[in-house]
């Protein structure tokens, strides 16, 4: 095995945990805070609906198999059935998860990030585990889209996310060098530009004033950045497992997902990113669960054709994914914010999918679950598909996050009346 790697160096230079300290304000802010963070977790092949939806409606439902791993938190989430986007059926369904009816439309996470994320270190983070579908393709497996319909790239290496969240000493040095040298070189650029300005027409001189004005403003900003480069951004004693490289192949989904969840919880705690999405891909990987290799790959299992053995193995995968999700919810409950409140209270977590039934590539009736965020939880809410769309739930989530919106994709109703 290799003897050194970058991560070891990181370990040695890391201090212990240091949060943006707002504790002193805690006393004054006892009123119910607006949720600060939005997390969307999507599964590529959907969730087996018969074991995701409880048979009973309301609070006293019997726990279905896929929900069982998160049963400890049953009063912190709500299950929705009957909602979808009315999107076309077919293979592309999974990428409709956050963008509604039309593939590539301004996605839920980006609508929220554009509103609340602009002052954060990362307005939004897009993460994926279990391989990336059609990497480099036009849209591929991307699920987050800007207002201009640009699909955002997804980060799939935990180590890259880690190094961005917790900037290493050497990265910091480089950043500082770039800032300082860039700033000192501005004087020379300015000198030459002024010389240029003397020799142009009056109209061009006026136009160039825009440039000088901008340059001065940029210089001020550079100064601020240089001053803050050595501020403690966020540090942690959390360490990624020491290994040769990132678990990025599809077969490594079960290893990668817990790492991503850990890092997401840290990102929430350090207020690094107010909006995050995580896509669980998996593709054709043949997983080993509890020491036993499944007969066929995840993709093949999703085409279960209602065969009991296939469904049994598919449920093993989905339950395993839910165990990871359970650990995430537990962390969000245990970790506290500056006000001493559980992170989950100020975090809205959406778990869902764009694929209704992978076995038939049908994209109706999409399983969805919302946790945290201070909603009144604990129920299974079954909605009439003729009345409501999944976008109505999204409108409510947007409103909860402080985004004023009356419509999302093809929906314009909201669930504000049923979900408070």
């Amino acid at each position, binding site marked *: 095995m*290799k003897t050194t790697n970058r991560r070891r160096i990181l370990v040695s230079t890391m201090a212990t945990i240091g949060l943006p300290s707002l504790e002193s304000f805690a006393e004054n802010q006892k009123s119910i805070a607006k949720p600060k963070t939005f997390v969307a977790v999507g599964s590529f092949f959907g969730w087996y609906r018969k074991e995701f939806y409880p048979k009973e409606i309301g609070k006293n439902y019997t726990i279905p198999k896929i929900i069982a791993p998160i049963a400890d938190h049953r009063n912190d989430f709500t299950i929705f059935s009957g909602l979808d986007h009315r999107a076309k059926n077919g293979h592309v369904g999974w990428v409709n998860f956050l963008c509604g009816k*039309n593939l590539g439309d301004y996605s839920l996470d980006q609508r929220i990030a554009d509103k609340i994320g602009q002052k954060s270190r990362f307005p939004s983070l897009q993460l994926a585990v279990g391989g990336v579908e059609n990497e480099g393709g036009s849209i591929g497996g991307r699920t987050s889209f800007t207002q201009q319909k640009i699909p955002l790239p997804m980060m799939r290496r935990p180590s890259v996310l880690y190094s961005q969240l917790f900037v290493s000493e050497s990265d910091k040095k480089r950043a500082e060098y770039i800032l300082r040298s860039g700033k000192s070189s501005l004087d020379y*650029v300015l000198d030459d530009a002024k010389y240029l300005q003397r020799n142009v027409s009056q109209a061009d001189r006026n136009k160039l004033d825009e440039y000088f004005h901008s340059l001065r403003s940029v210089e001020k900003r550079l100064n601020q950045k240089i001053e803050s480069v050595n501020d403690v951004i966020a540090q942690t004693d959390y360490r990624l497992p020491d290994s040769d490289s990132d678990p990025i192949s599809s077969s490594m989904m079960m290893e990668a997902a817990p790492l991503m969840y850990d890092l997401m919880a840290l990102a929430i705690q350090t207020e690094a990113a107010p909006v995050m999405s995580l896509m669980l891909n998996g593709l054709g990987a043949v997983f080993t669960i509890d020491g036993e290799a499944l007969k066929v790959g995840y993709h093949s299992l999703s085409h279960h054709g209602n065969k009991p053995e296939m469904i049994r193995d598919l449920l093993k995968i989905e339950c395993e994914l839910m165990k990871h999700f359970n650990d995430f919810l537990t962390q969000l409950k245990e970790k506290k914010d500056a006000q001493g409140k559980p992170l989950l209270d100020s975090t809205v977590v959406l778990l869902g999918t764009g694929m209704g039934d992978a076995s038939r590539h049908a994209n109706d009736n999409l399983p969805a679950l919302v946790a945290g965020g201070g909603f009144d939880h604990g129920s299974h809410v079954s909605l009439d598909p003729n009345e409501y769309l999944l976008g109505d739930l999204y409108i409510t989530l947007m409103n909860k996050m402080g985004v004023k919106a009356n419509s999302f994709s093809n929906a314009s109703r909201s669930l504000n009346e049923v979900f408070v």
Partner: protein
Amino acid sequence: MTSATVFTHDRTRNIQLACVLILAFSLAFQSVSGEDTVANENTVGGHPQKTLNKYCVECHNAEVKEGDLDLDSKLSDWSSPTNLKLWEKVLPVISDGSMPPAEKPQPSDTERKMLAKWLDSSLRENKSFGGTLARRLSKEEYQNTIRILFDLPKYTVPLGFPDDSTRHGFNNTGEGLIMSPTLLGAYIKVANQVADELVPVKKIAEESSTRVLKPDDMVANYAAAAKYNNALRFASSGTQIMRSCSWPKRMTVNTSGIYKITVRASSFLPRSRNLMPKEPMLLELRARDLAVGEREMLHRFRLLKTISVASESPQDVSFEAELYEGETILVHWNNSPLSYGGGQNRNLGKHVRKRFENDKRFLAAWQKVVLENSHDPKEGTLFNYGDLRGMSGWEQFKKAIQDKDLDMSHATMDSVQTKKLIALFASQGNVLGEAFAYDYFEKGPALDLHEIRVEGPLRSVDGPQDEEVKKRQRRLFDVPNEALSKEGNVAKLLEDLLPKIFRKPVKSRTIDVYLKMVTEHWSKGYSYESGLHLLIRSILISPRFLYRSLDDGPMDDYDLAARLSYFLTQGPPDKILIDLARRGRLSAVRPSEVDPSKLEYWVLRREAKRLMPTSHSAPMVQSFTSQWLGTRRLDSIMPDAVFNFTADDLDLAKREVEYFFTEMLKTNRPMTDFIDPGFTFTTPAFAEKIYQVEDDKTKAKKDSENKFQKITLARDGRYGGLLGMSAVMTTTANGVDTQPVLRGVWVLENILGMPVPPPPDDVPALTPDTQGAKTPRDLLAAHTTKKSCMSCHRKIDPLGFVLEHFDPVGRWRDKWPESGTIIDASATLQDGTKVEDVIELKRWVLTNIDLFSRCLAVKLMIYATGREPSYIEVKEIEDIVKSNRENKHGFQDIFVDLILSETFRSK
């Protein structure tokens, strides 16, 4: 149709442009332009200045300054460009009677004519060519420039890079290209990225180590590989890697270098002779770039070594190979008899046929498993074989073959069942191959991989990225001359590099500034490379790079080269242009061959023709057409499902415009062909779907149905030309219903060149009583009954109505969709001409083709020069248009003449 959309006004349109163009139109319309205007202050009707004083200066003087306008002080100085601009605006309001206001004393017709003539001749006398504000590079120009200058063909500016704002209809005009702190911040970011690409941070090579990869450390997707007896077993030689190959789950190489790779493998041979392979098994090891997706085909990955695996007991084979940063090792069995997936399922059909021929029970069992499992009663359509994949299918097969009562009655090669089974293997190979592979996993032949050891890097090598960097550096920076000092080398480099990047010769003062910057950086202890890095970062935020044509005096050859190049290619001038500029040849003239009394810019003409776009995908074609015709909006329109118009159709519609424009330019078609060409470019399928064109010949050949091609349309018909094109009709609707006002405004602006001004601010929002309105026509009647709307809407609405036969995607319809009323598309045009429908409107435009040509020429000129042409410049354009028609020339001729014009050549 909702009233809200009908009465929406676009207030952003520019009133100034509107006025100038309306004026020009009215002149063109009366066909007075130039010929009967006489430059004489004392023409019939009195003294112009006195008349102005009498009717205008009462309000528009230094004290009252009505409308913030003081005409009194402007009368004396005709040399000031701002005064000229002002008089350009005064002329139309005098000639069309909108000034003085009705309640004030009015000049007589003779007085009006006299004033108009006098203003016209004064404006002509006081030539005002040029005046583009210093333009920074637009976002597209900037990106292209970075790509070309630094040899980074795939470079794209980061997400969130600010967009440019549109003025005068285009996003590359001087007024719109504003600099802001945010934009400059983005330039700095890009400069850093480019510097990192050119002078990358040196990576420290990692120490050598040995990694041992066991079967559990390897990826197993689908049935590409499976673990048997502590080995990873392969069965298929298919070429889609996720279905037939394996690679380490988590090993990637961080340092490009030579690695020693040791592979331990063995062959697993079948008991049956029939299945015994005739040649030794070949194990392929390839380099897998982990950034490449798992659906990719084998040939994308570099072959490292082919190993012959002949022994049934594990044997080690070692070899050395280069692995580059980001790569890992891909394992593939090259010559398995079985292959499926990735488009090779026909082979699977052939392969199973042979197996079935040799074993009837085998055939019967597969028949049972596959045929009895078809869930879909309709044969040949969609089958759901989901549960037949992989081991699940294989276990069903095993059960079947062990079944004593297995039905053997159809187990012959000529039975219907066998034929269907083989066909299914050939069509559903991804699914069935995954199950069939287990036959090989369990019985052989199969190939077993026991271990891979990777030792290294034994020494580092340049990976492809490193090679690229070095090549780029050699091209850009040249090799440092060892005889020269560091300073000497950089001075030489600056002399070479700065003129390229700044698109102009550079004085020694500027070179010295940058040289000083680098030497000071070095003096702080930084390396030679760090100095270069800083240099790139700084040069790229200099106004000399970001702006073009920045210096005093008239346009020089370098500015001309940049203007020509950015106009025609959206990129910086190439070597040829720069060389011509350096020798002062770009503006060279000689007597014209046609008319020796005139001088001709023959080099400019030659270069214009050389750089003229010839492909629909040329940036100029895409950028210009989408802005001129508004087809940029197509991206945000999603036609209602009832129109059966998909996103692909939107794309086809947009491409049709681009192909059409390119053809018009390339083949120098007459300007009238923009309106009635007799052809278009699209796919036969689209032509049939939207234009109801059925071509038997293309229909016969199914392949060509979706191929883009020239399609003949009847002349003097419904379709064809800009006024019968799907993209235009779609972009002027909203995907749901048509909006006659939008279409009317569109025709006025983009075909006739007579934009209507936005309504004045004090017009109250209109809530007409539209109860009982059955058609859009009824709805819009309010426009022509309300006085405040009438003046503009009597120009707009008729043109919109004429196009009502086109639905929101440009397909012909005879009835309005909701009421079912027969569409009445008749209208009376501004000059009193009555037209029945779009066919007659097109005929009218053809007889007034100069209107259209002038409109397009002005748009091209705005796009090219980045400014709205002045009065005198419009006159020059009009002369070009007129002579083009008289000489029966084509679009390319106008295009080139515009480039040769004084307007184009003025800064």
